[in-house]
């Protein structure tokens, strides 16, 4: 039976909304401290080199504080601390004497103004020995190619790197050869994804203040304040208690601040040396040289019987990870997980290789490999369905991993059974809304403008929770205390990346206790005053973070009722709490007995006067599963066969996110996910100039295009619907959404383009240039 809720399921404005739209929100780059110095980083102009000589005297003469690769702790680390040591390879140093990509930090300066710092930077002289670079993973793996890293660290030991292969993973289940023999149709294709940049609004920034007693206070762009703290401890050996990372609002990240960004340890090194606060704010151009998404090459093979049952699959994946490992090994695991969790493969083989190249280091980006592999699988499933003469919808529904099946939420060590699924309804309703039956036959149109409808489905995990520990850390802490006026302070280390995560927590708390939403005060906390939270990533904010919020709310409610029972002379279980909007707080009352009530504020004040103590709760919560949230996209596009331009005509997007906590914001995630997927399918890439070894656009955002509102479908042609399920393990039945909102989009668009012009593309982005070439080729044939 459906419960009725006061806040859950109703659209409420995000709690940080006013501060954000009025420009009063404080981001890391808004922090200015007395006596603060401005820092700049000296970056390698070569993609692969060794510093032969560095002379910083010119910079020092200008009054700047300088650190080089020789002044930083001799510690090799991994900037991402989400995985356990068994799944973590280390190959980073704060600054390097052997730069591995254009932009690799070699030294840094700090001075009284940015102008002076820049002048000091330009006064540093460096002599390089230039080494041979490689920009392509296939080339990089060739024996005899110069190694980027000769040795890296794993579990406290040094390991040798062979052929620039950073790490590998192989998985085999069943008998693949037999599986392909049993198939009536086998298709094998090679796919190549693009190398995207996150383009989060806020470039990476760190402000570091050295404290008396050897500690540091840090304000930075991060998705995890606690992991930032632990990393600084690991590198600099400062006692954990003396490192305080303060939460500031985050101007988006999309995964690019799961790891601690390089600005943080550099600013710490400078601040410790200068004994003054240091601010290191990257420019957009530097940010483009700091991170990007993983570019992947897939060789994907699927076999199916005439009846539509998949019999086997094999996937060879080569990941171009750039110059360092951030989470390459865990990603190899996640990739196979996303793959096997889309469609049931009775027999399968997976070989994943992550390869170093002399390019900007890759990291997670919304979906963590899932958008890439889902694009390939959804394309190949479409192709396979056509070969088999089946409707792709039926073919996919028949084989999909759903209710009761095992789901790989975060690689081979994080799995749980699916307990809620709206997949079938998503597909059926979406098909009806778009008019799937009326879609054209692929390649049948002749005119200049050709329209097509494509379908793509997918999912993402909600958290990396699981019944057993595995190799991924995933738990959240929360504290809740009742103030004397009936308001509540909610303290969590969890970051809100801008998606409204903490507003959702506040709603969960308000709903559970029965107070007006405004009563929940989200405290701007720091690492010293919060319990550990792993990170706001893996679409876990509402599902895992919200579970901790729910637990403390329950506990606080229990205590409130216990105390109120004394005061009201009633039994705790006979008491109820209602949010009283007029009084602006919750009121505890005895159901059915008039006048027997007390506000939470009165009760909390009484508790103070009578010395009963603070009504509060603390919890550290681990979720025991990783439920997938599901999405389905139906996209209609129009291809101009003379200019190769693709235009979106209509979108129908459905999502099963369990219980919807905040419909407007959830819809926003879908719109954003579509925009990002559209961009991935058609626009984005960061190619390199082989002559300079730098990004072809040199980091300039003017040549990294994202769609604007005018390039996307008008709102009236963009229909979002939710199929609500109740996830038994989620707070109020909720699951995640952030990543599933993106994952199937590129696949749906690629299928729509095929439907319009009868051509398939195996390389992203599908640019107008490629479309024209393909159409011309087709006409010749």
């Amino acid at each position, binding site marked *: 039976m459906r419960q009725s809720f006061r806040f859950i399921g109703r659209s409420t404005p995000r709690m940080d909304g006013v501060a954000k739209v009025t420009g009063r929100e404080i981001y890391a780059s808004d922090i200015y401290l007395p006596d603060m110095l401005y820092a700049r980083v000296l970056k390698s102009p070569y993609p692969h080199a060794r510093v032969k000589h560095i002379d910083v005297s010119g910079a020092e003469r200008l009054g700047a504080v300088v650190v080089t690769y020789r002044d930083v702790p001799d510690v090799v680390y991994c900037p991402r601390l989400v995985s356990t040591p068994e799944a973590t390879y280390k190959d980073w140093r704060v600054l390097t004497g052997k730069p591995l990509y254009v932009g690799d930090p070699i030294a840094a300066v700090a001075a009284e103004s940015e102008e002076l710092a820049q002048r000091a930077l330009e006064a540093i002289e460096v002599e390089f020995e230039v080494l041979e670079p490689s920009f392509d993973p296939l080339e990089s793996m060739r024996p005899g190619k110069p190694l980027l890293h000769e040795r890296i660290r794993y579990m406290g030991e040094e390991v040798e790197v062979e052929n620039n292969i950073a790490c590998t993973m192989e998985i085999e289940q069943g008998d693949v050869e037999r599986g392909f023999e049993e198939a009536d149709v086998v298709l094998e294709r090679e796919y190549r994804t693009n190398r995207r940049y996150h383009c989060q609004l806020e470039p990476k920034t760190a402000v570091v203040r050295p404290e008396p007693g050897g500690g540091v206070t840090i304000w930075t762009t991060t998705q995890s304040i606690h992991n930032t703290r632990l990393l600084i401890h690991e590198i600099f050996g400062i006692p954990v208690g003396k490192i305080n990372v303060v939460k500031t609002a985050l101007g988006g990240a999309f995964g690019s601040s799961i790891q601690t960004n390089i600005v943080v340890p550099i600013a710490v090194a400078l601040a410790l040396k200068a004994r003054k606060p240091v601010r290191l704010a990257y420019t957009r151009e530097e940010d483009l040289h700091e991170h990007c998404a993983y570019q992947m090459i897939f060789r994907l093979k699927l076999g199916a019987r005439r009846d539509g049952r998949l019999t086997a699959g094999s996937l060879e994946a080569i990941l171009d990870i750039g110059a360092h490992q951030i989470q390459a090994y865990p990603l190899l695991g996640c990739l196979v997980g996303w793959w096997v969790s889309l469609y049931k493969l009775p027999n399968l083989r997976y070989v994943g290789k992550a390869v170093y190249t002399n390019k900007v280091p890759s990291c997670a980006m919304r979906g963590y490999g899932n958008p890439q592999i889902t694009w390939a699988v959804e394309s190949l499933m479409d192709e396979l369905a056509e070969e088999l003469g089946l409707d792709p919808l039926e073919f996919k529904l028949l084989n999909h991993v759903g209710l009761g099946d095992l789901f790989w939420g975060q690689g081979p060590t994080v799995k749980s059974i699916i307990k809620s699924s709206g997949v079938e309804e998503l597909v059926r309703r979406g098909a009806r809304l778009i008019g799937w039956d009326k879609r054209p036959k692929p390649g049948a149109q002749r005119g200049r403008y050709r329209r097509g409808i494509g379908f793509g489905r997918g999912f993402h995990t909600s958290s990396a929770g699981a019944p057993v520990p595995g190799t991924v850390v995933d738990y959240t802490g929360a504290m809740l205390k009742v103030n004397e006026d009936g308001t509540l302070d909610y303290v969590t280390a969890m970051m809100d990346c801008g998606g409204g995560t903490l507003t959702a927590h506040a709603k969960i708390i308000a709903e559970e206790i029965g107070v007006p939403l405004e009563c929940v005060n989200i405290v701007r906390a720091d690492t010293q005053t919060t319990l550990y939270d792993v990170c706001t990533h893996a679409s876990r904010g509402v599902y895992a973070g919200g579970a901790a919020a729910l637990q403390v709310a329950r506990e606080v409610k229990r205590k409130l009722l216990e105390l109120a029972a004394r005061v009201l002379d009633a039994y705790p279980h006979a008491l109820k709490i209602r949010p009283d909007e007029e009084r602006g707080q919750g009121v505890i009352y005895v159901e059915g007995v008039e006048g027997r009530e007390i506000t939470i504020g009165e009760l909390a004040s009484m508790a103070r006067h009578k010395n009963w103590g603070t009504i509060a709760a603390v919890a550290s919560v681990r979720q025991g599963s990783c439920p997938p949230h599901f999405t389905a996209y139906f996209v209609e596009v129009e291809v101009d066969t003379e200019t190769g331009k693709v235009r979106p005509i209509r979108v129908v997007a459905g999502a099963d996110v369990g219980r919807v906590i905040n419909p407007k914001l959830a819809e926003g995630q879908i719109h954003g996910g579509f925009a990002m997927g559209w961009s991935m399918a058609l626009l984005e890439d960061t190619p390199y100039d082989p002559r300079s070894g730098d990004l072809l656009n040199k980091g300039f955002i*003017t040549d990294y295009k994202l769609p604007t509102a005018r390039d996307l479908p008008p709102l009236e042609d963009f229909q979002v619907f939710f199929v609500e399920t109740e996830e038994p393990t989620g707070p109020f039945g909720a699951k995640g959404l952030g990543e599933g909102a993106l994952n199937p989009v590129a696949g749906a668009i690629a299928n729509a383009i095929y439907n319009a012009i009868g051509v398939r593309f195996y390389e992203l982005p599908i640019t107008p240039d490629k479309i024209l070439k393909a159409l011309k080729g087709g006409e010749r044939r």
Partner: protein
Amino acid sequence: MSMWINRIDTHILPINFQYHAPKTLEEALKLLAEYGDEAKILSGGTDLLVKMKQRLIEPRHIISLRNLTELRGIREVEGGIHIGAATKLREIERSQIIAERLPLLHEAVKAIGSIQIRNMGTIGGNLCNASPAADSAVALMALGAELHAQSIEGERIIPIENFFKGPGATALKPVELLTAIRIPPPPENYGWAFRKIGRTSLDIATVNAAVLLTLRGGRIDLCRIALGAVAPTPVRAVRAEEHLRGREPTPELIQEASELVVEDISPITDVRGTAEYRVEASKALVRDALNLSIERAGGGGR
């Protein structure tokens, strides 16, 4: 290789220069005469400051046009329409005169950047920056505009055909200032079209094109076709124009003319598109622009 990557800091203007804000045109021309090569004119700054931040240019002197009201404004004069070189693009876009008399220019200007950019950027800046992709340039070429340049020596008039000398290079001498653009009155019943392809709707053109033509007795009479981003400067598609002149605009003719466009362009491959793509896109844009122009000239089009 240079340490160029370490020389850019887009938070600031990382170079030293002296800033001048002359109060009169005469004063500005004197400053130009004095500093010439070492000086750069600052109009809206939407190109200049970007280039300074990118360390592509390092002028020692910046001469701002901000106080020179005589370089602003749009008015009808004998011999056409006068636009001050420092007139904001947004003002041109919103001008009644331009919308009614020169809708081709109106559309080209509207295609430049975003409202924020058009609030800052000026038409003189768009031309003097001499980007092969400048949107107003193709429109003004099709309209046969004349550019008024001034130095302390006096004034000269440069037909827009002769103005662009290469990417970033114009016919202006270092001591000269562009003061105005003069557009002759367009012929009666003319047809026109502006077309632009970018990677997104907020982008520098991968290719842009402008057409202006008239019909006489069902045949194409006057015809100007200009293309941008497909050669070192904006160019006229002369071969195509010749092919069209005096002929009846049949679909076959339009097709032939659009194919001839390749004779006058020499596109390169860059981040915005490949040379091959630019060739194909040029043909498509010119075909579209011709069809629309013929329709607007009362020729029915296709």
